[in-house]
């Protein structure tokens, strides 16, 4: 695996996991009506 492959993999995984965690955190901490 090349260095650029590692970089692309880490960036991609960080983006999808980060987006999902951020979204779920906002959903779960939203005040209930």
């Amino acid at each position, binding site marked *: *695996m*090349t260095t*650029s*492959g*590692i*970089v*692309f*993999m880490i*960036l*991609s*995984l960080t*983006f*999808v*996991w980060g*987006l*999902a965690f*951020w*979204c*779920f955190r*906002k*959903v*779960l901490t*939203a005040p209930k*009506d």
Partner: protein
Amino acid sequence: MTEQAKEEWGTRLGVILAVAGSAVGLGNFLRFPGQAAANGGGAFMIPYFCALLVLGIPIGWAEWTMGRYGGRKGFHSAPAIMGVIGKGRVARYLGIIGVLIPLGVSFYYVFIEAWCLGYCWQYVEAMFGGTGLGIDTSASVDEQTKASSAFFGEFTGQSANGVIFEQFGETALFWLAVISVNVFFVFRGLSKGIEKFCSLAMPAMAICAAIVLIRVLTLPANPDAPDQTVANGLGFMWNPDFTALAKPQTWMAAAGQIFFSLSVGFGVIINYASYLKKKDDVVLSGLTASATNEVFEVGFGGMITLTASFVFLGLSGTIGAVAGGSFGLGFTTLPVVFAHMPLGNLIGALWFFMLFLAAITSSLSMYQPTLAFVQEALGTNRVKSTMLVTLLGVVGSSWVVWFSAGSVALGTIDDWVGTFLIVVLAAIQVILFGWVFGIEHGRKEAHTGAQLHIPPVVWFIIKYVAPLYLLITIGRFVWETLPTWIDGLAANPVARNTVILIGVVIAILCALVFLGEKRWRALGMDVDGDYPPYDEAPPVTPASTPPADASKRA
């Protein structure tokens, strides 16, 4: 009167998981890695994420918004909602595509679901001393692949039409079982059935995927070929080839993958969102459902499938697996990989159980839009509507199971309904939303109750970029691919008759729209979207005031 108005989601998390469950399917684990590896590896992620941000998520937001707006008018089916958004009969009849797609795809999807369950069962049996898939690991890799392919051919009835019903073996029993499970959960209703199931199935799927991922990432190097390591397997998938970025087909492939993966233009989101209330958020919910889909696609699909294949089959074997398509990779190559893997039977069972869960959360979302439409058009109760939808589903799926040789019926419906019509429906929806419903109206509607603000550029994308992309895609298809498909129909009677079956379904749906429109007008519902929803203060002029509480009557 119907029971439609009583249906609603139990929790916000429930609807997000249900939409995400609808989107996460076999394509996340089997199609995505193949597409990425064939189109530049890690470099593929650049056009892929661009497509996610400028195409998938914006169109998804438009669908969520249209669905909730239609629900506020008392409608839950794509034809009725699109009639409201598109303000007239033409849009209403075009909305039939939003029922045809989920219903038509369900015809073959439950069959594939039965394969997943059947394969899972084979691995469970093997854990307790059964023969499993009959792969002899002491034979050559070619022989093992042939054995795996032979099992797949026999299990899925590739040899002759009618063989699955005539033998009435395990495949037929699994097919009946998955249809029964689907009908059971759909019949239980939105909150008690689909939502409850998805709320359990999605975490279970994530746990199965995580266990398989850990197993794959901790595999030792292949002793017979020291280069076949996990790191090199990941490299096969992720090492970037930047020259691919100069090819238009890479960008088209990335957009296509995002499009099909997120289930936009499928007729499901518009139905699911119609059960939301006026103040329920659609922006963050839509984004969260898309993000969940991406975790399964990139986070699991991009890490497991090709890595495992590379460690055991090497570079040439993995290239061959990718060339074999999703079914070849999932049902022929991976069983060979599992046969070599320590704890292979357990991992195989978990893998196919995860695929089964991915498939069933999707197939449940295919029955619900049809059920809502039947219920809404005929005014029947849930029992009668479920019986009618079950009848339609079983007849259509029986057709696919009977004409199993070469998967011709399956492939024909997948091509015409599950591929082409999805792009057509998305184009119609986004044009109606951007150009008839109006961007300003859509912006206000989307932001009602929203927890996030949609950037202004998204509205430009929805109005201009998305329709242009979709129309170009349709134009390219009509120019390049359609003639080949039509020639294929002339050459193959099963394919031709399958298209006739699709035509019969369209005729039935047209009749239901005709009956439904008469019924909705008789109930005084705002069929053509002339008035604000009942939960909004109407204009005071007497001429434009709708009949009191009309849209509540559905």
